[in-house]
């Protein structure tokens, strides 16, 4: 990694950080909806 990389001195591009947060939040909400809202209500098998 180059010494001129802005993320090395705490200047990570804000757009990348926002994108990461949006994707992570969206994926987590979608997963939780599918697990608690779709999968479990269909009746687990044991």
């Amino acid at each position, binding site marked *: 990694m180059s010494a001129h990389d802005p993320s090395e001195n705490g200047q990570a591009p804000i757009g990348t950080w926002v994108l990461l947060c949006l994707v992570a939040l969206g994926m987590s909400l979608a997963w939780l909806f599918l697990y608690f809202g779709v999968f479990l209500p269909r009746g*687990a098998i044991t």
Partner: protein
Amino acid sequence: MHINTLEKRWLYVALGMILLFVGAMFFTAYSRNIHPPSHVETIDSASLHLSEEFAEDKLGVQPQPLPDGSLQVKLVAARYGFYPRAIEVPAGRKIVFRLATLDVLHGVHVPMTNMSTMVVPGFVAEVTTVFPKPGEYPVLCNEYCGLGHDHMWSKLTVVAPDTWRAPTQTGAQP
């Protein structure tokens, strides 16, 4: 080892998501007492029709519920159908399926529910589930078992608990 700050953030976020998902699964498995099916019981597939349990007149929903109140359903999978061809069970009640195959490997799948298992020759498959919503569901084979595999299905009717009547004897449904 040097890791870029931005990469570290992505790693932490991905790790946090994995912990959230696995934690949700552990929490519900513990709080709802969900275990993976682990029943091991052998049976002679070639003589199912002579067996005490899977003879033709013993199949279907059993008239007597189990001690914990759950209903027991016995099914035989054979090329190319599930027997009996139609069963009726109440919604919201624990159903214990016991399945055996007369010939080759079959799968049992009820779409729009989580009911699904393999039926391996020589073994009795036992799974417990609950059907929350009344309706008509197909019971499909999801393991390729021969040329008639895509015609192998039967019908499961889930009715509201107050309209369901227990069969007076096996084979009395539908």
